[in-house]
Each structure stands twice: as C-alpha cells, then as structure tokens.
C-alpha cells in the first residue's frame, strides 16, 4: 500500500509538475495573505502589515525549495532538471562542449578499440572444456640447452602408458595433403591425431563419431577422417549427408566419419586422420606435439614430478636416445597468444589508459576554468538554498553528460576503426577477426564513461566559491581564491605532460625497434621475388617421380619470360619450419655439438634467393642427397654451410674441403664442406642469423618451397607458374603464393601494428597536453592583464613581459617533463621483450621526446605570451 501510494505520488508530482507548483504558490500566498489580515486586525497599518508578513514567511523561494526537496521523486525530478540545465549550459558554451566531447571521444574510442582487441585475444576463452586442466607437454634436453622440443613417437606412447596424472594424453603431427576431386586441386592441412585428441581437448563431433582406440590400433592404413567445421563449410558446402562420403587426399580415398563443432579457425580449418600406434615407433625424431588433460585434483606440480619419474626410467632404458630427457608442462592459456603478444596487448591497454587519463585531466581543467568564471552563478545558487550536495551533483552532471556524449562518439569511432583493422587482417595479432563491438566491449565503454565522468568532475565539483557567498557576490571581489584554482590547474597540466612523456617514450621505442627490424640485413633478398609451395603427394617420393617433376619444372621455368632465377628449399625462410641437427667437425671433439638448422636446396636456390657464395662452390647435378638410397652404397656426402657456422666449427682455417659430422651423436653422417654461403635470418628479421647447413636435393630429398627471381612485379609471374604446374600434373596444387616482400612484411606486422597504435595514441596525448598548457596559460594571462598593463605602464619591456608569461606557462610543463622522464624510465622496463635493437633507456628516444614536448609547450605558451606582450597599458588600465 505504502509503496503504491509512493509510486502514485511520484507519478503525480512528475507528470503534473506545473499544477503542483501552482498549488504550492497559491498555498504560500494564502498563508501570507492571512498573516497580513491577522496583522491588520491587530491594528497595524496595511503597508507595515504587508512587510512584516513577508518577513515572517521568510524567503518564498527557499520555502518552496525545501518543500520540493521532501516531495516524492524529488531526486529524480531534480536530476532531470539538472540534466536539462547542464545541457543548456553546454549549449551556451559550445567550444567547451565540442572540445570536451571530442577529447573524450578520442580517448574512449582508442580504449574501446584496444579493449576489444584485448578481449578477443586474451579474455574470450577457447572453446575447450575446463581449460585449467588442459596442458601441453613437450620434451626437454636441459643438459644440451634445449628447454622445449617436440615429442618422439615412442616417448609419447611411453608417457601415455606410464603416467598417473592425466585423464587422457594425445599426440598430433601436423601434416598437409593434396585434396583432389573437389573443385581445383588444393593443399589442405590434414593432421594426424591419436584417438584421444578431441576427448583431451573436450570437443565432441557435432556429426558422426570421434576417433576410437580401434582406429588407432589399425595403424597408418586406417583411411577415415574427421572434418573441422570450417573445412566442412568451405570445401563441402556444409553438406549434412557428408558422413560415409569419401575424400581423395594425396591420391588415396578416405571416408568421412565425423564433423567438429564450430570454433577456433586453427582447429577447424583442417581435417584429421588417426595417427595410429605402431610397434616400431621412432625414438629419435622429434616431431609430435602432445596435449594432456590433468586428472581432477592433480596439479601441474604433481604431474611434473610424475613425468620426472618417467623421464628417469626412459633415460635408463634408452641411453642412446633419451639421455638427459625431461618433460615440460605448459598451461593451455598460452595457446592463443604468446607471451610477447600478451605483453604487447597489456602495453597497449596501459597506453590507452594513460590517454584516457590525460583526456580526463583536460576536461577537469576546462570545467575548472569555467567553474572559476561561474563563481557568481554558484554563489547565487547557494544563496537561493541549493545544498552543497546539489551543487556537486550539478557540476558532476555536466562532466557525466560530456563523457556520455564522448562515449557515444567514441564508440562510433571505435566501430569504424575496428572495421578497418579487421579488413587489414594483421597477421600475428591473434583472433583479430573476432575483435568487434560486443556486449563485453559495450559494458567496458559504459563503465569507462562513468568513471571518466566522475573522475573529470571531482575537482571542479569540489571547488566552492572560495571567497564565500557574500564575498563572491560582492562586485569587484574577483581575485580572491582564484590563485588556488590556478595552482590546481597547473598541477593537472603537469600530470598531462608527464603522462604524455611516458606515452611518447613508449611509442618512440617501438618505432625505433620497428625501424631497426625493417632495416636489418636479412642475408637473402626479398625484392622482385615470388615464393610459393607445391606440395608433393606420397607417390612423388617413390622412384624418381618427384625429382623428375622438379627438374622438368625448373627447365620450364627457365624458359618462362620474366623469370631470372628459380630454386627450391625444404623450408621457406621466415615463415617455414626450422628443423635442426647437432653438427660438429668430423674429428670427434668432446665439446657439446652446435645446433644448426638444416635445409635441403636445389642448386639454383642461392641465386634465386640472392644469398651469395663466399668460398668454394655451389651444389651441382652430381651432388646427391646425404641419405643413401636403400640397397646402394653410401654416397659421397657434400654440404654447404653458413659463414657463422663455418667460423664456429673451423675458427682459424678455411672450412672448404673439411669434413663434418651431421646429426652428431645420432646418425653421425660424415660429409664434406664444399662451400660457405653468407648468413641469413632464416627465422625472420627479429631472430639472430641462423647457423645453417644446406643439403643437396634428390629423389629421396624433395623440396616444395619455391623462390623465383623475376623481372618487375613478382606476382605477374603467378599465372605462368600455375599453368606450368598444371601442365605437368593437374592434381598438384600451388599454394601460399606471395611476394617475398610480403612474407617479411607479415613477419613484422604485429610490431608495426603496435608501433602504429602507440604512435597514434601518443600523438593524441601530445595534442591534448598542448591544449591543456595553452588553456591554462591563456586563462592566467587574461586574469593578469591589469598587472601586466601596470608593468608596461611602469616601463617593462615587451621582451621581459613575454619571458615572464612564457616562464609561468613553462613551469608546469618542465616539472611534467622531469616527472615523465622518471616515470617512463620506470615503466619502459616492461617493454624490454618487445624491443629490437633498442635499449629500454634509449637516450636518443628520451632526448627526442623531451625536445618534442618542450617545443610543443613553448609553442602553446607563445600565443598567450604574445598577447600579453601586446597589452595596451592605457586601454587595460582604463577598463579596470
């Protein structure tokens, strides 16, 4: 009942505001009338009675205000009234409104973009069951300096059989196959997985069945496949009757038994075949990835101890392969983003936080300036009975209104920016395609908007007329108390400058890193070069089929116009995998053998990729693969090595003609070094040049990554390449065709993305800080006009006036620069791992940033200073 009455009262008061107010007016007026009547009856003369009655009633507005305060819905009523009032206030002051909304929109837009990228990459969980129990396993050989490597097949089966910590353990082997019979021939990912793989992840097929242990037992010859959801959609048109149908992969027929649910592209854009257990599993080649699901209650620590026990057993049982073996457990949270990506996203999030803070300080500054100008208005409101709380609410409302509009505009900006970012498809920034405006992002924006509104409103809201109501209302009493506000505003500017400094340093460091990264000497040349891969099916490895294909292909390429050189390699530089081996000089030394990358190459590869021969000779047609063919005597093995490797193995002599042991302490193949080539950064610009061994190709050493040097635009040769391949074998797909420049560009795209975003943010920060400095000094100068005029009248030179004002404006900026330097120095350590070729405390960057800020601050101070300098003493003093 009581509640109902209350609701009714609120409704009535709000919907009949005018009637309610008129009623109150009439009531108070009748009170006064009767009071007057009373006094007249008591004998007072009418004029005196009227005055006395008025005095006795007290301030009519105040009485009315206090009635309004107790009315039901008073809060809501006054909020809407204040909102309207703030809105009107902002409209009266469009410069403030537009500036404020723009600043906040930039700040909020930036933070929304970064948060949405951050959310997509780090916060949105993977579609796997109970991620906390899901881990990745890898082998280690700590005694040889290897802290993470793939599993060998035999070791995996042993771990799976002997462990007591995991519910299920599964292995996978990345593999590619040529899909034919569905449109044009194409290369697809077709990984091998053990039967428990999807059970370990916690993913169940939406169609058909999972692999069973029965599938595993049948070994490699079991021709069934499970399709990833995206693969099913893209290649088979999401055919609901796909189960039982067959796919032709590498010229063999596989039966579809299941389809996975939609989810992450890296798991869904491929097909899966059973890995199969086989008895003679290999213990020396590290090829397999392993995942495991911890038993409920088991911790990573206890599982680690369990694996240590298994490692000790393996090391004892298989001393040749498993000496020094250990295992490593990595949580599955690192699957989406590497540590560095994670770090970079945190840095970006911190950066937009700074930017937003600067925007807040700026708004606070603007509102403060206006508040000072509005002291009289505020004093009048207080005199009319506005309580302190209402005044605070009134000012807050304004900053909230600004931040509300800012958030709306910022969201629109973010929406556009995210669309552009998604279209740009920056490789290396995980799940960027999913970054968008979703409920999480909207929630974030709303929270940020409110926080921003409150934060930027605090200082202005708490500034009461310092001189008190009476003092402020008295004419000409303008100066009192303003000095305190001036100081507060200077402090805000100091904060802005300091934050900008930190942002600019971050951006500067990343930009310098990126510049170093793109100017680094790769060893090979990327301009005018086309790369593509031709994946050869298993049949090509029999007899001489693959070799013949390669030779005929190169023959045809040599005849193609615009192709200057052509070659092939087993792993594409920068993007490809990086197989390695232990290598040492043949005279068995006792030291730990260096670990070197190995690549199989055709003789034309070095010219095609622009890697110069330094000494000796390149391979020729007489050089055969280092792996002997079955039933034939071992070949005379010849290899080329990179310069750094040559220096390492043969420090004081020419490596050409010397012998080395390949796969040291495994198969120990003896080979002669016939040449030394220049170093190359096989793993991309950010990694050190590799120690590399080059092996000759042949029938049992096929290569599938091609590099062409072309005349002019490399992509112009694409059509010719495709038609040549199709004429040799229409079932061979040409895949991953790009210009070599693009390959390198993709490798540094994340760094470019980070540097670019941070540069944009710090540019905005600089702009905001500049307006802040300008605003404060401009205001202070205006206020000091009479004083300056007096100085001029007393003979101060224009130069000294300029120096004085600029000096006053520069003080907060200088303090800010000093503080910012310290802060940036302290913060930049968190960026160490993101930097390349630049130290976190890079003097040049710090000096440049300080110089830039000084110059901008000076420019911002110059205009108000010039105005002060030109003060016309006579005019200004007369106005006073």
């Amino acid at each position, binding site marked *: 009942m*009581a509640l109902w*009455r*209350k609701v009714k*009262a609120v409704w009535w008061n709000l919907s009949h505001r005018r009637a309610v107010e008129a*009623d*109150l007016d*009439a*009531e*108070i007026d*009748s*009170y006064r*009338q*009767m*009071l007057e*009547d*009373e006094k007249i009856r008591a004998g007072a003369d009418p004029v005196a009675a009227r005055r006395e009655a008025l005095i*006795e*009633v*007290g*301030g009519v507005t*105040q*009485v009315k205000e*206090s*009635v309004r*305060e*107790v*009315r*039901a819905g008073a809060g809501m009523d006054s909020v809407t009234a204040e909102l309207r009032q703030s809105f009107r206030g902002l409209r009266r002051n469009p410069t403030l409104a537009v500036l404020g909304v723009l600043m906040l929109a930039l700040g909020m837009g930036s933070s929304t973009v970064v948060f949405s990228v951050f959310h997509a990459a780090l916060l949105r969980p993977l579609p796997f069951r109970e991620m906390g129990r899901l881990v990745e396993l890898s082998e280690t050989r700590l005694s040889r300096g290897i802290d993470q490597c793939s599993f060998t097949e035999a070791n995996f089966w042993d771990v799976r059989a002997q462990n007591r910590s995991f519910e299920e353990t599964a292995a996978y082997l990345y593999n590619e196959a040529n899909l034919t019979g569905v449109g044009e021939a194409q290369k697809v990912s077709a990984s091998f997985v053990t039967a428990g793989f999807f059970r370990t992840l916690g993913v169940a097929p939406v169609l058909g069945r999972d692999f069973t242990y029965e599938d595993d037992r049948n070994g490699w010859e079991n021709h069934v496949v499970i399709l990833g959801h995206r693969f099913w959609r893209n290649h088979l048109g999401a055919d609901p009757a796909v189960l039982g149908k067959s796919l032709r992969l590498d010229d063999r027929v596989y039966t579809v038994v299941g389809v996975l649910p939609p989810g992450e592209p890296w798991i869904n854009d491929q097909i899966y075949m059973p890995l199969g257990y086989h008895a003679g599993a290999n213990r020396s080649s590290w090829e397999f990835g392993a995942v495991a699901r911890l038993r409920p209650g088991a911790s990573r620590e206890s599982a680690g101890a369990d694996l240590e026990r298994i490692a000790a057993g393996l090391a004892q049982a298989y001393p040749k392969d498993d000496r020094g073996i250990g295992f490593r457990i990595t949580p599955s949270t690192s699957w989406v983003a590497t540590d560095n990506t994670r770090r970079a996203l945190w840095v970006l999030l911190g950066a937009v936080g700074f930017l937003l803070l600067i925007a807040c300080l700026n708004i606070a500054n603007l509102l403060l300036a206006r508040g000072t100008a509005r002291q009289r208005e505020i004093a009048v409101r207080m005199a009319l*009975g506005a*309580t302190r709380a209402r005044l605070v609410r009134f000012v807050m409302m304004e900053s909230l209104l600004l931040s509300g509009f800012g958030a709306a505009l910022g969201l629109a900006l973010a929406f556009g920016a995210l669309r552009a970012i998604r279209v740009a498809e920056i490789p290396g920034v995980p799940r960027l395609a999913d970054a968008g405006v979703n409920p999480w992002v909207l929630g974030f924006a709303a929270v940020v908007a409110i926080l921003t509104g409150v934060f930027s409103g605090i200082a202005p809201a708490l500034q009461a007329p310092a001189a008190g109501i009476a003092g402020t209302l008295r004419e000409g009493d303008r100066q009192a108390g303003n000095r305190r506000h001036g100081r507060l505003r200077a402090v805000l500017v100091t904060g802005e400058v300091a934050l900008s400094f930190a942002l600019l340093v971050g951006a500067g460091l990343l930009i310098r890193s990126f510049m170093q990264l793109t100017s680094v000497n790769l060893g090979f040349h990327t301009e005018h070069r086309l790369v593509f891969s031709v994946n050869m099916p298993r049949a090509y490895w029999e007899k001489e089929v693959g070799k013949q294909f390669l030779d005929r292909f190169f023959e045809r390429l040599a005849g193609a116009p615009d192709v200057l050189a052509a070659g092939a390699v087993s792993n594409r530089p920068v993007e490809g995998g990086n197989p390695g081996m232990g290598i040492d000089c043949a005279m068995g030394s006792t030291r730990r053998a260096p670990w070197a990358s190995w690549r199989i190459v055709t003789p034309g590869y070095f010219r095609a990729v622009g890697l110069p021969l330094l000494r000796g000779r390149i391979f020729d047609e007489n050089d055969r693969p280092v792996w002997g063919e079955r039933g034939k005597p071992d070949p005379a093995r010849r290899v080329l090595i990179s310069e750094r490797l040559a220096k390492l193995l043969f420090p004081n002599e020419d490596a050409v003609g010397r012998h080395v042991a390949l796969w040291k302490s495994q198969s120990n193949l003896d080979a002669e070094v016939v040449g030394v080539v220049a170093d190359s950064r096989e793993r991309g610009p950010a990694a050190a040049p590799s120690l590399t061994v080059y092996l000759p190709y042949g029938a049992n050493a096929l290569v599938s990554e091609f590099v062409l040097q072309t005349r002019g635009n490399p992509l112009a040769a694409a059509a010719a390449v495709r038609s040549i391949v199709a004429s040799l074998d229409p079932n061979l797909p040409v895949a991953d065709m790009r210009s070599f420049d693009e390959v390198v560009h993709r490798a540094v795209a994340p760094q470019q993305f980070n540097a670019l975003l941070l540069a944009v943010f710090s540019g905005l920060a600089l702009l905001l800080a500049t307006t802040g400095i300008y605003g404060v000094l401009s205001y202070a100068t205006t206020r000091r006009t009479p004083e300056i005029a007096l100085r001029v009248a007393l003979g101060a030179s224009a130069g000294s006036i300029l120096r004085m004002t600029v000096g006053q404006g520069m003080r907060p900026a200088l303090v800010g620069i000093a503080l910012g330097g310290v802060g940036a120095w302290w913060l930049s350590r968190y960026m160490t791992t993101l930097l390349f070729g630049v130290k976190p405390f890079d003097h040049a960057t710090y000096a440049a940033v300080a110089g830039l800020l000084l110059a901008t601050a000076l420019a911002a101070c110059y205009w108000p200073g010039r105005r002060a300098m030109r003060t016309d003493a006579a005019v200004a003093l007369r106005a006073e």
Partner: protein
Amino acid sequence: MPPASNTALLQGTLDVLILKALALEPMHGLGISRRIAQVTRDTFLVKPGSLFPALHRMEEAGWISSQWGESENNRRAKYYELTRAGRRRLKEEVDEWSRIVAAMASALELS
C-alpha cells in the same frame, strides 16, 4: 544556508504536534502554526520553512489529506485533515512520547 532552522524542535516533535493540532478539526497552515504556538504556550513557533515541507511530506505519507476551502475571513486556503492512517500514526506517536517522557522524567528525578 537553509532558512530558519528549527533546532529548537526535537526531531520528530513537529510531526506529532501537527497531527495533534489536526486531531480536533481540519485546519490551514497558518491555523496549525497558531494552534501549536497556543498549546505549547509559545514554546514552539513553527515557521513556514519548516511547516510546509512537513505538511507535504505527511500528505505524501498518507497521514493527512488536503483540500482548498474558504477561511473564516473569506480567504481561499488549503485545509488539511487527518486521515485514518494519520489517526493511527498519532496514537502511536503519543504512546511513544509518553514512554519517552516517563523515562526521561524518572531519569532526571533519580540523578
């Protein structure tokens, strides 16, 4: 600052005084004010700044209701009267006050 603060009035005193004043007959604002002054022998002088907020608050609480009428001197005036809820409220308040008065009296006598 808020006008004419009635610190002389104990918290809650004003409500019970108004309810009591209205217990006999409907009255307008000035009448209530005069009645309270009269019955408290001018101890409590209720000013409009306290009276009107209290009246409006109590009306919204449903203890009193109001309607416009003619005053004794042919002035239009807003008359307030007790509702049923108001009478109940008055009784509760009176009981409460008697208890407080008794308690205070004994406390002050003993000390």
